[in-house]
């Protein structure tokens, strides 16, 4: 059957001109794509229990001779907890939402750009995708942080750009690039026959894409999209390095207010780990479940 060989070409109008080199795509939702979610979702309840136990045993051997007891440290954490969660972690989530929103919109556009029949547009989209997909996130963050002004003037009013918003732009870049790949991959995974059938029925390219191709790959894009959301959320503490008052920075401030006892480190940052885990674990489990369901349905 010829459909495999012509998979790339059909997206470019004239069906028999291969424009890109054959593109090897692992269907969205395959093992490689969901590495992170798979890893996260693979924590069994038992291993969680063991980690929890170790955590509780900690004061027994580590802090025996200290005058600042572990209980005091936990007390401090307890006092600061509402502040850390509602001011710090909430900001991490806020950043993750906005990043995902902007990254998804930009990524979908870029992904559609990659399969455009206009070659310059396709090339440029491909280049941007590769560039931001393979750059270290922290470097992108720093660049955006330093490149964006701290305020902009529209008309007579001056709008400040808060640091967290700049961080959103910075993190949006790699997310955009990865979503772009998800979109392109999902589109390429639709058999060429679908393009040809639609073309033969006199659909325009635009109609083919929006009425025939995209509705079919929408579902396949969800698991990898969620996978990236979990990765992103776990990565948001990076913004603390840029001075954004996220959960990590606020925890540090809280510890400072408690006289920087070293005993505070484990409870405070342990809590940070737990809360990220507690938030992302269900997402990862759900991602894997969805993906399994889609694989079965195919």
């Amino acid at each position: 059957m010829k459909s495999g060989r012509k998979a790339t070409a059909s997206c470019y109008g004239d069906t028999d001109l291969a424009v890109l080199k054959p593109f090897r795509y692992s269907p969205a939702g395959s093992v490689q794509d969901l590495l992170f979610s798979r890893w996260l979702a693979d924590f069994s309840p038992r291993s969680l229990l063991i980690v929890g136990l170790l955590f509780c045993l900690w004061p027994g051997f580590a802090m025996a001779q200290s005058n600042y007891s572990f209980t005091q440290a936990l007390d401090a954490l307890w006092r600061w907890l509402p502040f850390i969660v509602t001011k710090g972690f909430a900001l991490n989530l806020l950043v993750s939402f906005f990043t995902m929103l902007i990254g998804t919109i930009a990524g979908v556009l870029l992904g559609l750009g990659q399969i455009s029949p206009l070659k310059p547009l396709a090339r440029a989209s491909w280049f941007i995708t590769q560039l931001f997909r393979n750059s270290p996130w922290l470097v992108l963050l720093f660049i955006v942080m330093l490149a964006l002004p701290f305020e902009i003037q529209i008309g007579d009013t001056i709008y400040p750009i808060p640091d967290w918003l700049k961080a959103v732009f910075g993190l949006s870049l790699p997310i955009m690039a990865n979503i772009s790949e998800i979109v392109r991959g999902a589109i390429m995974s639709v058999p060429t026959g679908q393009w040809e059938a639609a073309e033969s029925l006199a659909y325009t390219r635009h109609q083919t894409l929006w009425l025939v191709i995209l509705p079919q790959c929408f579902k396949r894009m969800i698991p990898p999209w969620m996978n990236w959301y979990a990765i992103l959320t776990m990565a948001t503490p990076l913004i603390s390095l840029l001075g954004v008052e996220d959960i990590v920075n606020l925890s540090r401030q809280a510890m400072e207010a408690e006289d920087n006892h070293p005993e505070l480190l484990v409870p405070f940052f342990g809590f940070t780990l737990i809360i990220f885990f507690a938030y992302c674990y269900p997402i990862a489990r759900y991602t894997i479940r969805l993906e399994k369901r889609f694989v079965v349905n195919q």
Partner: protein
Amino acid sequence: MTNNDWTPDQPLVSIHDVHKSFGDLEVLKGVSLDIMKGEVICIIGPSGSGKSTLIRCVNALNTIDSGSIKVEGLEVHDPGLDKLELRKRVGMVFQQYNLFPHKTALENIMMAPLKVLKQPQAEAEERAHKLIKRVNLGGKENSYPGELSGGQQQRVAIARSLAMNPDVMLFDEVTAALDPETVNEVLLAIKDLAQDGMTCILVTHEMGFAREVADHIYFTDRGVIVEHGPPATFFTEATDPRTREFLSQIL
């Protein structure tokens, strides 16, 4: 784009000296044939001889390198051609059905009339119901392609193509992927069409069927038409050794 100077006494589809290469491989080496309105022709030939390539050129799914293909006077490979105008006149049915899996049978049939021809919903729906009955699938309106057998899917695909009211239909080995027991129901649907006066170009391996419905049979090998004739003489009086060998293998 209007229909320049074509009149019904001229060939509906006129293929003249068409050449086509994929890279270094010359797949069509000067193919010519004419099809009059209402005619049914069958193209037979060994695998790789360029049958699919040829009919895919007729609705511009493939481009040609030289020669000319005219459908109702529209020059198919004129760069200024409105491909949509051409494809509204040429229906195509594929070996792999290629139904849209996320749409029901009825939606598959209705969608192009609605979106491409901009027919009103009620009209498109009424016609879709008629067509689905015509291919003998009354009751399957709301089934998704995944819930239908190969033969049923292929009949939906035929109805989907008919819904555009084409002037000529292309069939590319439409029964080749089917279970033997469902081949007949699809052939019946095509026969019904042919007897109704639809102009059809069929690529097929079903010799019995070709003999029954075709007005003219073309045998292709390695990119050329080796031999052609009406079925009455084609099967019995073929002279070219390649045709005879092919026929002896397949009959």
